[in-house]
């Protein structure tokens, strides 16, 4: 008779999820599911609101990636106004997003995932966390916090607040930087670059030790999607959408992100509150694609900066074509941090960062608009329909994490099949399953717009409903 193992909640990710692993009568893994248990219900808050409030509203969906929502929402507003945003404002928005990607990836790697790599998947869970990391690798832990602070400080200098800065608005931004801001940022570039290079060398040195995990953590063929710039340059703000397959062959290119609904469908499954976007031409399930750092490196042709390009060349050796092993999200994340540091440094001499030409004003000129931004976790779309007074009639947010939903489910199944055989479930195996999800750095609060933590526990349940094992996390 079939059995079910639950991991509930999944630790060290943002939001609430549980993992159910279904065993067959021979105690072999039949299939697994990644359930998102948070209820998505924010949409009704948008109806009737003026679209110019949407950046501030949507930024409060989540405390982790507010800048991403601010940017995507403001860009949707730009479309509704039908304005050309002044070039200085575009550059400042780009700086903001680079800082956002940098700080988010720093938290993901150093705070949430590094304990697994550096302390071992089988180490005591009481120590396999940031405090264990601080005890064993104090300088690495401190460096990671400083790297995150660097990104957060840039965001605060631009927007006045670390979280939910109401600085980015439809038509442009509210303020620029001054000489002192630019000096502060420039002074911290060398350390930020060095920390990232060291973290990359550390991770690459550990890959051989985790060969089995690298092969089994979400290593399967799929499409990859992301924005690219002119000439296939790594892009995070303005660009076109590109899909590549698992061999890195281009499936679709030059797609307008404002027409995402033409090529991205959304399916709903009864066992999760997270929707499942897919590439329409291939249909649901076959159209599974991944977004985020791994996908962005797979779709681009160049990072555009020297050190990051060198790392990209090395990264490409990890796969025949595209890099399909989700374990390497972590390495991709660090390469993106390096690209962010290099790009920020390149921007600092641009006088436009101090410009006062920051905003284009207009009234409502279109009744439908889409904004797109590459959030740390992947491509984010905000789609608004408004009335003649600018009030929201309908809003749809396609969140990065949701676009990885199908891939996360497949990852859990793969890991469970690799490591579970029989009724005994060692702690390290459960953490590997969770770590597979953590590789995606999902933001479930964002995807489902939910509130804080709920008390939950782990159960192993027979198909007849009898609980045969139970764990508290």
């Amino acid at each position, binding site marked *: 008779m079939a059995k079910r193992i639950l991991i509930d909640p999944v*630790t*060290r*990710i*943002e939001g609430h999820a549980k993992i159910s692993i279904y065993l067959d009568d021979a105690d072999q893994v039949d299939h697994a599911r990644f359930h998102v248990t948070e209820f998505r*219900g*924010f949409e*009704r*808050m948008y109806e009737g609101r003026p679209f110019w409030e949407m950046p501030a*509203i949507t930024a*409060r*969906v*989540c*405390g*982790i990636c*507010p800048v991403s929502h601010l940017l995507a929402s403001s860009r949707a507003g730009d479309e509704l106004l039908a304005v050309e945003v002044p070039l200085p404002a575009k550059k400042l928005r780009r700086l903001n997003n680079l800082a956002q990607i940098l700080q988010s990836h720093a*938290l993901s790697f150093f*705070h*949430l995932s590094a304990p697994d790599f550096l302390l071992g998947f089988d180490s005591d*869970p*009481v120590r*396999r*966390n*940031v*405090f*264990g990391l*601080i*005890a064993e690798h104090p300088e690495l*832990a*401190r460096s990671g*916090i*400083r790297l*995150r*602070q660097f990104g*957060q400080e840039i965001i605060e200098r631009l927007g006045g607040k*670390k*979280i*939910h800065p109401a600085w980015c608005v439809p038509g442009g931004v509210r303020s620029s930087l001054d000489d002192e801001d630019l000096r502060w940022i420039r002074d911290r570039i060398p350390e930020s670059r060095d920390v990232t290079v060291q973290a990359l060398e550390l991770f690459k040195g550990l890959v051989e030790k985790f060969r089995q995990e690298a092969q089994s953590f979400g290593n399967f063929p799929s499409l990859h999607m992301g924005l690219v710039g002119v000439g296939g340059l790594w892009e995070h703000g303005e660009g076109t959408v590109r899909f590549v397959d698992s061999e890195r062959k281009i499936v679709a290119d030059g797609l307008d992100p404002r027409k995402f609904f033409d090529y991205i469908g959304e399916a709903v499954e009864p066992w999760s509150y997270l929707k499942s976007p897919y590439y329409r031409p291939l249909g649901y399930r076959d159209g599974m694609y991944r977004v985020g750092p791994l996908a962005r490196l797979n779709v681009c042709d160049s990072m555009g900066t020297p050190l990051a390009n060198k790392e990209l060349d090395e990264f490409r050796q990890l796969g025949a074509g595209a890099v399909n092993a989700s374990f390497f999200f972590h390495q991709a994340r660090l390469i993106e941090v390096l690209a962010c540091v290099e790009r920020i440094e390149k921007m600092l001499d641009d006088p436009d960062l101090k410009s006062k030409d920051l905003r284009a004003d207009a009234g409502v000129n279109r009744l439908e608009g889409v904004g797109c931004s590459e959030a740390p976790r992947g491509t984010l779309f905000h789609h608004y329909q408004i009335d003649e007074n600018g009030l929201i009639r309908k809003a749809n947010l396609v969140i990065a994490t949701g676009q990885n939903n199908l891939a996360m489910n497949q990852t859990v199944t793969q890991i469970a099949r690799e490591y579970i055989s029989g009724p005994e479930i060692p702690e390290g195996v459960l953490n590997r399953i969770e770590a597979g999800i953590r590789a995606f750095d999902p*933001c479930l609060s964002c995807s489902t717009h939910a*509130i*804080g*933590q709920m008390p939950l526990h782990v159960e192993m349940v027979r198909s007849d409903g009898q609980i045969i094992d139970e764990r508290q*996390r």
Partner: protein
Amino acid sequence: MIGVTSNPAKLLVIGYGNEWRSDDALGPAVARRVESLAPPNVLVRTAHQLLPEFAAELATVEYAIFVDACYETEPLDPGSNAVMIARLSPHTDGSRATHFCHPSMLLGLAEVVFGHAPQAWLVSVRGERFEHGDSLSPRARERVEVVAHQITRLLHDSKNLSEIEGHQ
């Protein structure tokens, strides 16, 4: 000391919560009210949720007060307590670490990473509703005023802080 800048403030008040979840906004609302009432040597911060980098600022102050909404299912008896104050200790159990940090874990980070954790308290203010919404309930609004004034009175003389704990 890493990331620590010279800061003359001795006191830090951090109010946190989701301001689009009705009374979950109690924490930030109380903090903002405290900011309008408090003496100049008090730093006030509001946040959607507590993040690890708050540890750097905590390490620079002597006293910290966290303010958050709490959720109870039992009806509140007349005259009984809607505010609870608990003394916090630094914790270094990060086994459930996510992007969100508990105040005790932040204190632990401040202590182990930056070498100092302030004396700290958590002020939990009971909320009445937590569904999607951008305004406080009438009772929550009343409690904001009461709690903010209570905290401000304590902040005017930091010696009082060592004595506070329990239901208010």
